[in-house]
């Protein structure tokens, strides 16, 4: 199990009802983590529509998830 820190932006924050959380997960990749959170919070956006960042850098969905990682899920935003 891995302890991670998760941050949500824009519509994800709205749907998750929070801007960040700490949790312990069995997920080994951000892809698996997102699917877990998607089910838990009822997130509507598909993974293909998002980017994920780990520790301040855009990351691959299949990158390994290390203990203490700071994971940020970022949807595109369009308003202006």
């Amino acid at each position, binding site marked *: 199990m891995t302890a991670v820190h998760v*941050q949500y*932006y*824009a*519509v994800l*924050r*709205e749907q998750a009802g929070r*801007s960040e959380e700490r949790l312990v997960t069995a997920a080994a990749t951000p892809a698996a983590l997102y699917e877990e959170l998607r089910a838990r919070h009822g997130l509507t*956006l598909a993974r*293909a*529509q998002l*980017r994920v*960042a780990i520790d*301040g*850098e*855009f990351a691959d969905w299949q990158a390994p998830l290390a203990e203490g990682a700071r994971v*940020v899920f*970022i*949807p*595109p*935003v*369009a*308003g*202006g």
Partner: protein
Amino acid sequence: MGAFAFSDRPLDTAAERARVEDHAAGGYASFEGWVRDFNDGRAVERLEYEAYAELAVREGERIVAEAVARFGVRHARCVHRVGELRLGELAVWVGVSAAHRGEAFAACRYIIDEVKHRVPIWKKEHYVDGDSGWVNCERCAAAGLEAGAAAPAQGHAHGQDHDHGHDHGHRHGAGDARPDRHPAGLARPDYSRQVVLPEVGAAGQDLIRRARVLVVGAGGLGVPVLSYLAGAGVGTLGIVDGDVLEPSNLHRQTLYALADAGRPKALLAAERLRALNPEVDVRAYVERADRERLPALAAGYDVLVDCSDNFATRFVVNDVAVGLGKAAVLASVYQHEGQLQVVRPGGACLRCVWPEATRDGLVGNCAEAGVLGPVPGVLGSLQALEVLKLVLGLPSAALDAVVLVDLGTLETRRIRAPRAPCCAGRDCARLPGPPAEAEAAIELDVAALEDATANDYVVVDLRDAVEVALEPAPGPHLHIPLDRLLDDPAQLDAARRYLLLCARGQRSRAAALALRRAGLSSVWSLRGGLAARRAP
């Protein structure tokens, strides 16, 4: 004879020079303004100058006295022509003698700049095509006719027959290609509060003055971008926006007024920015920035700023910037959050972050999701700052990164975004974008007619001779009856922008559609025609 004079005969520069000779002077500088063959995109054949002499001489003498006092020169003098001038003729002469060359140059420059801003002189241009028009004054007179309905930017009204008895500053003179400027008074832009910064200085201010920035979208993000860049003295500011102002815009677009509702935002913004800083060359494009049109518009600019409210346009701006090797500053907002990214040739671009072009409708825009006005205000201010950093060559944390700003928590997070390996050498401008927006609007509102010439539109009256005789079209325009235009669309120059008009806007709309199908993209129709002009 005073230090400022008018002459209705050719100027004798040798005699004028003799008047400032002085054995205590070690240097002499002079400036000559000549009649040029081209102004505002039209071939000029000859000119007439007319001055309100009494006032003009008083103001001119004041300027010369200011220059003598300010720069400590020995003698200074300025002579301006009135009457009819041919191409190449000397229109204005300034001569200064001083102990040293530095003061002589500075005083000479000061005098010609101030004369152009402050002395009431009018110029009538006679064009090669037989047409003619009063530069500057014509717009005031046209506005005066509709005073109250559409308040002129300069805030005064005077008669159609050129009542020259007003004393506000008009620009004039040979070499002045920007008659759309109306400095409101005697004050001059003063950049001292930014020049004093070590990162700016006189050299930095010069870089800002030379910068050419195209802002796509004059909305919540665009308003602070445009305001700060005009204030900073960016030399050329382009505004692309095809929308008209709606009352629901005003909580975040505070450059405008409620009374402006229904008018094209690009024209409104241009008007306000010219008032904010008459030194800025402001160009308004009332149209959508699509994949076909933006490359042509962007060619004359160094930095593109995306202030649009949709993904389609954002990708177009990114792709055009990458394709043309220009920098781009991108931002977007969602409720109380924003994203900021600066794209520089060779660095990460929007597609390095979002490889799949995102479709609109996936996540909300301001209209759908709601936004507090200061949120785009903050992100737009950040964009203006990033533009200035680019222009001044300062480092930026938004390069090769996306900066996430949460104004709810006041937290900022920078996500590094290296240039994607697939990006190197790829031609983003040719990539498929998201579904195109609706075809660029083909009709312009009647307000566009008022500023048409200033905004580089050639107005074309399509009506037949009988209609024209009954009610001539206002302002400078060409008359090409509809059938003759459609017989030979090649008589229009593909590089120019045309605003077609007829009585009720139906023929002009059909003609604009036909011309666009024939390959002329820069053709618009005046909505409602001349009848719309008479409507209350």
